């Protein structure tokens, strides 16, 4: 008995060791990055790494005094959140139709939606620039919101559709004989049942959107519409050279909103990522 118990506790100890090590491997770069953000510039470009740097708020002061970092962050959050809302509003009904109704060309439409993601973004960059120029939305968050939504719409539709396919048809039949119409079924039965999938799709879309660079650079030309991802690029050129500590700090700030979102919905997300993959 005693040896069995010791075995088990040793195994538990080993498990924590492995998981702990893995956590450190995953988290270390981020922590290292954060420390870079709080070092003086002189301590960053040195031949040997400094493990115990002297702390400095140089980068922070630079950001606050010279750059409207708060408005970048706000632009990012507004454009990304708005685009996710647009995606969900459009994708949920589309996914429902693609997963449930029989109509001619259903598979083709499904594939067409997905195929919009297969194109290299650079191909449409110039037309999109002129499109927004003509409708007077250049250099606004609204344009970014629309572009992000367009980029991710196909992916969001496809993910949600795969979840809806897994919902038993019986549930809808039951709701129909209970007296529910299509919209009620969608709102009261389908959406709650595939909520993990919707959340997963929303988080993936948000991550893609917050990291989007090419179209943001094209559309945003002043701080009116700059987002975190484009703002980062501003620290790499100019007469000051590459400002690594500011880059590190801004990267970290860009990463925080996504981290918060993921932590908040962790339960749904892990369920969502596995549930869609394995049937049953």
């Amino acid at each position: 008995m005693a040896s069995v118990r010791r075995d088990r506790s040793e195994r538990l100890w080993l498990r924590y060791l492995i998981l702990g090590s893995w956590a450190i491997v995953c988290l270390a770069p981020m922590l290292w990055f954060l420390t870079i953000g709080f070092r003086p510039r002189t301590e960053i470009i040195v031949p040997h790494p400094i493990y115990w740097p002297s702390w400095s708020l140089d980068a922070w002061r630079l950001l606050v005094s010279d750059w409207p970092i708060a408005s970048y962050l706000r632009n990012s959050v507004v454009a990304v959140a708005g685009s996710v809302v647009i995606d969900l509003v459009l994708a949920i009904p589309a996914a429902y139709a693609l997963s449930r109704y029989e109509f001619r060309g259903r598979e083709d439409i499904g594939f067409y939606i997905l195929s919009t993601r297969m194109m290299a973004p650079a191909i449409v960059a110039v037309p999109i620039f002129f499109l927004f120029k003509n409708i007077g939305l250049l250099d606004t968050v609204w344009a970014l919101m629309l572009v992000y939504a367009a980029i991710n719409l196909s992916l969001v539709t496809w993910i949600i559709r795969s979840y809806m396919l897994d919902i038993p048809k019986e549930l809808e039949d039951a709701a129909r004989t209970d007296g529910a119409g299509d919209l009620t079924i969608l709102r009261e039965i389908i959406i709650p049942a595939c909520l993990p999938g919707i959340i997963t799709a929303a988080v993936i879309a948000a991550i893609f959107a917050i990291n989007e660079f090419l179209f943001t650079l094209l559309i945003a030309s002043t701080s009116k519409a700059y987002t975190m991802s484009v703002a980062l690029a501003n620290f790499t050129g100019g007469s000051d050279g590459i400002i690594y500590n500011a880059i590190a700090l801004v990267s970290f700030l860009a990463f925080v909103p996504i981290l918060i979102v993921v932590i908040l919905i962790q339960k749904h997300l892990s369920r969502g990522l596995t549930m869609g993959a394995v049937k049953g």
Partner: protein
Amino acid sequence: MASIQLNNIVKRFGSFVGVENMSLDIADEEFLVLLGPSGCGKTTTMRMIAGLEHPTGGQIVIGGEVVNEIDARDRDVAMVFQGYALYPNMSIYDNIRFPLRMRKVPADQHDRLIRRAAEMVELGAFLDRKPGALSGGQRQRAALARAVVREPQVFLMDEPLSNLDAKLRASMRVQIKHMQRQLKVTTVYVTHDQIEAMTLADRIVIMNRGIIQQVGTPDEIYSDPANTFVAGFIGSPPMNLLAGEARDGIFRSEGIEVPCPRTVTGSVTLGIRPEDCTVGGGHLQGMVYGVEPTGDITYLTVQTGKRAVEIKAARDFRAPIDTPISIGFDLSRLYFFSENGERIRRPA
């Protein structure tokens, strides 16, 4: 409450015929069971009554009204599904409440109706649970409560007990029958389980390949089968069907010789139920193939030629295998079927 008429209903899925030219009158307050092997069109028939499938041809009448063009949600029909189909995100209370909300039943009546329905299926203590936290039997009872709560004109039940274990199935069966008698609602029940059909039904409809084989009370179906399909489908073990030749009032087949009506001639099939055979008697000569005591009865399998004949023998009957045995038939309970499988009835 309502009667249901099906007039020449046809349902095709592409070139596949689901239901072929089906006509059926279901009386008000009747408990009708659709029985048949899987793929026989019984569930399709039920789904057409519910409005979940659209018939390719024919007419469906519920309570005197043609409902072909009426959507499922506007038919006053409640359905219980094989997989329960409880809404997973709602509590049992909200599941039972859903049809009341959808049918715009005044909100101040909801609570009373829900509790009454839940009491009827003995689920009162589980109302605030989610379906995931209930056992299979409790889920099925919740599904029943959801169906009865709004007192529909018609109940439709699609193999509601097939996901439950045998013991639970038996007790649920009684519960369903009791509830139907209490509520007096016309009920159509689909199953492939003949015990369920025999015990529940006022009338049974036996279907095969989309075609009605026979409609009748359980007694009629059992003791007066219309053809070999019905004879071979009902009964456990089912009726023995033995092909042979009849001439001059005698039916002969390998190892079998029995008197038959003089009107029966040519290639025919003899049907005899296992309980109408007795050990000893000399109508059939064969070898003992197997003896299976079950306690209250012993199943005896006799081989004659290449055929096996099932016999229900006395509980204490025992015999070594491969010994010769003689079997007698109750001559008043012989059935004869023509080559196409139809029953040859004695001229009245």
